């Protein structure tokens, strides 16, 4: 037990990223005293992310200056249960954040909503194709519908000043936007981003093939903008230092400028930095949590009692906290029983590289995290899956986001990876290339899950989280299909010299923790309406401990063909709504188990 017990607070929030700061902002407005515990440091866009110093590819993109400190906190990994998991000794495949703003500081800002049919995926596919199409997969409904979440997606898009072109406002379709999207209640708050020459070629080519291109929705703001909390954002300069960097231009929506800066002095919010939460403490009857124990900045163990506990520490670490605290029942992949750690999923990434002749200048150093020209024709169930042998899909997008010289060295197929020929190819192709990403969904299967490592520990003496994951057959087939479509578009584009492809989920290749793919780790504490297959109910409230609320992508029963932050922030505001308008007046389970 902790050496010292602090005075009780109303709400304790673990983590000061997008979800944690939103919870504090909204609940403090209801008079709730909120304590945020953040294991990293204070930092701010104005002081810490200004150019040109921030534009340091070695420090931030290679050495990952804004991200978790793997020597202190990491996880272990294996492809399947017959292997021994080994620690992820340094960052690679995904890049979780640390410090004020969390990973929302160094994200790209590709801001999506799920499709209506993504949210009731099991019901939808069963009705359209029959239940067998989901055989072997633990696909589930979210338990909450698109209509219920729409106001919250809309609100978060306004928090971010999202730049985009609506394709469906209240049922009215507009071909310039994504015609597949669910109906939205309003237009995007800002006009779409500009696009580079290769992106315009992609757009025209895709349209000529009968697809429906549109500008990717972007939290890189395109006009001076004030968000609903009163925060000011500035137009993006297309500087090309977005993903892995903080934005000193106040142009990429992030949790610091969009939420934290709008806290008023009188708001009952306290943020404690360098405060690492070790576990959630339970009441004697185990029905509720009593607060959290953490290591304070002096390394002293203290107990912070609270009426309500909110887990906002990122998808993976939320699951870790549950496992080390004994919240819920750990998942057992042998029996399929238990729920904590179940349905871990990821993102299935493939891409086509397009090499142009000298007629087309991409100038890849100009770009923005969410500067993309996208088609959604092969996402979700926007296309007929009969006889395809898989479910799900993904968007296909010509993105120009990160053309910095160490990490971006496109060379045509067949080029060696070093030496004279390589050097010449880098020189000739750098300014004339674009990547078309296939951002595929990820289906849950029995053998992919999270639990605690039996051998390795973190600096606090706690067992590491153990990840067991490989690409399911369904997703391999899906990815193959998507990359085929991307390649076809690439080959139809004008002035193309060569086309390359990569498929991370190619048949025979194992998922690897090494190459960066996405920081879209999902599941492990999924939401639903059945306590035997979900950790939290449809409000994000734990079935087993009703005063613990869970936020982030760990709630997703399976991963979408979209980036997670729009969806998970829609869910966050939905949960906040349930707290504000129901739970806090009368704390109790909001659903019967």
């Amino acid at each position, binding site marked *: 037990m902790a050496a010292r017990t602090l005075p009780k607070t109303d709400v304790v929030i673990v983590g000061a990223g997008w979800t944690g700061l939103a919870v504090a902002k909204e609940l403090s407005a209801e008079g709730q005293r909120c304590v945020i515990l953040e294991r990293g440091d204070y930092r701010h866009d104005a002081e810490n992310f200004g*150019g*040109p*110093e921030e*534009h*340091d*590819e*070695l*420090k*931030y993109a*290679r*050495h990952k*200056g804004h991200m978790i*400190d*793997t*020597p202190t906190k*990491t996880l272990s*990994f*294996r492809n399947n249960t017959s292997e021994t998991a*080994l*620690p*992820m*000794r*340094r960052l690679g495949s995904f890049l979780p954040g640390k410090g004020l703003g969390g990973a929302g500081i160094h994200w790209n800002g590709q801001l999506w909503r799920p499709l209506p049919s993504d949210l009731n995926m099991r019901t939808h596919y069963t009705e359209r194709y029959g239940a067998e199409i989901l055989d072997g997969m633990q696909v589930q409904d979210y338990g909450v519908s698109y209509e219920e979440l729409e106001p919250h997606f809309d609100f978060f898009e306004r928090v971010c000043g999202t730049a985009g072109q609506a394709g469906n406002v209240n049922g009215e379709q507009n071909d310039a936007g994504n015609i597949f999207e669910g109906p939205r209640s309003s237009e995007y708050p800002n006009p779409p981003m*500009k*696009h*580079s*020459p290769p992106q*315009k070629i992609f757009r025209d080519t895709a349209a000529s093939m009968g697809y429906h291109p549109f500008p990717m929705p972007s939290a890189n703001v395109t006009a001076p903008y004030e968000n609903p909390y009163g925060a000011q954002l500035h137009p993006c*300069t*297309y*500087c*090309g*230092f977005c993903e892995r960097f903080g934005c000193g231009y106040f142009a990429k929506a992030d949790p610091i400028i969009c939420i934290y800066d709008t806290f008023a002095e009188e708001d009952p919010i306290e943020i404690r930095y360098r405060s690492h939460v070790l576990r959630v403490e339970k009441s004697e009857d185990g029905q509720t949590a009593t607060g959290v124990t953490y290591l304070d900045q002096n390394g002293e163990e203290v107990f912070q009692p609270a009426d309500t506990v909110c887990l906002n520490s990122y998808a993976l670490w939320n699951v870790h906290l549950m496992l080390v605290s004994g919240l819920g029942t750990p998942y057992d992949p042998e029996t399929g029983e238990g729920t904590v750690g179940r349905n871990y999923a990821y993102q299935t990434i493939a891409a086509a590289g397009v090499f142009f002749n000298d007629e*087309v*200048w991409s*100038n890849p*150093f*100009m*770009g923005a995290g969410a500067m993309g020209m996208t088609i959604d024709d092969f996402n979700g169930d926007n296309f007929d899956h009969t006889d395809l042998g898989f479910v799900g899909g993904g968007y296909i997008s010509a993105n120009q986001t990160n*053309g*910095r*010289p*160490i990490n971006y*060295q496109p060379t045509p197929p067949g080029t060696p990876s*070093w*030496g*004279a020929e390589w*050097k*010449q190819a*880098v*020189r000739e192709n*750098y*300014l004339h290339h674009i990547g078309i990403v296939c951002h595929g969904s990820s289906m849950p299967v029995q053998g992919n899950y999270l639990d605690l490592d039996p*051998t*390795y*520990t973190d600096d606090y003496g706690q067992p590491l989280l153990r990840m067991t994951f490989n690409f399911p057959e369904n997703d391999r087939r899906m990815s193959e299909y998507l990359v085929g479509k991307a390649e076809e578009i690439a080959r139809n584009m004008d002035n193309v010299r060569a086309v390359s492809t990569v498929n991370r989920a190619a048949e025979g290749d*194992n998922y*690897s*923790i*090494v190459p960066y793919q996405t920081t879209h780790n999902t599941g492990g504490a999924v939401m639903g309406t059945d306590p035997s297959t979900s950790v939290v109910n449809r409000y994000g409230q734990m079935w087993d401990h009703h005063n613990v609320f869970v936020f982030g992508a760990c709630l997703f029963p399976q991963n979408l063909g979209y980036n997670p932050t729009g969806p998970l922030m829609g869910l966050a505001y939905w949960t906040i709504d349930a707290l504000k308008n129901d739970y806090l007046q009368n704390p109790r389970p909001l659903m019967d188990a």
Partner: protein
Amino acid sequence: MPASFSRRAVLLGLGASGLAAGAPGRAAAQNAYANLEGTPWFYLTDAEARFLAAAGDVLIPEDDYPSASQVGVVDFIDLQLASPWGKGDGLYLKGPFPDGATNSQGYQMPYTPAELFRTAISRIEEAEGTALADLDAAGREDLITRLSEGEMDLGEDIGAAAFFQELHSIVNEGFFADPIYGGNKDYAAWDMIGFPGAHAYYLSFVDQNVPYEKPPMGIAHIPGTRRSASLGASAGAARPANRTEEG
């Protein structure tokens, strides 16, 4: 010792087939070591420096544009290995380190970057009998090829291909990173590909199908020149200690 130390002399000691194999004249003309010329290595030994210069120039040889060693990649590596990064501040190094790690599991060597380079280079030179830098161009290429293909025994705890990845990665970083870190001297690498650097504002260019003509400007650009301040003789001694503190 500092007074008589010359990095250039150490590397040019590679001889006619040495630095930037085949073109030592150009290496001298590039004068890549001016900033750190009188400063002893922060971490490397002379032998390690020669190995890295020779290996770097196999990976990034001279053509119309300079080679790795010509733009200061050895200085870059020396500074990196002496920095907190080199001492492993980005690595979880708790054991055990069992056999049977798969490629999917990534870095599993029980060494910090500084220790790894020291250990691996000495094992390579020992196994081969002849220093890399003393081989002719074909011999160097052959050795690096075998290393990259894992066709070399570097002991139980270092896979040849895994070490090659680290070598390749740090040479590439030194060549293309901002010149403040000692490589990419006078923006040589950025000039080569057309990357304009860290001072970035492209609102009115991003949708244009034209080349972008402005010369590169790095983080510590010296206005009115085509050069960046880098870890010069004065700053050099102080910087490795605090440079990556936040990183």
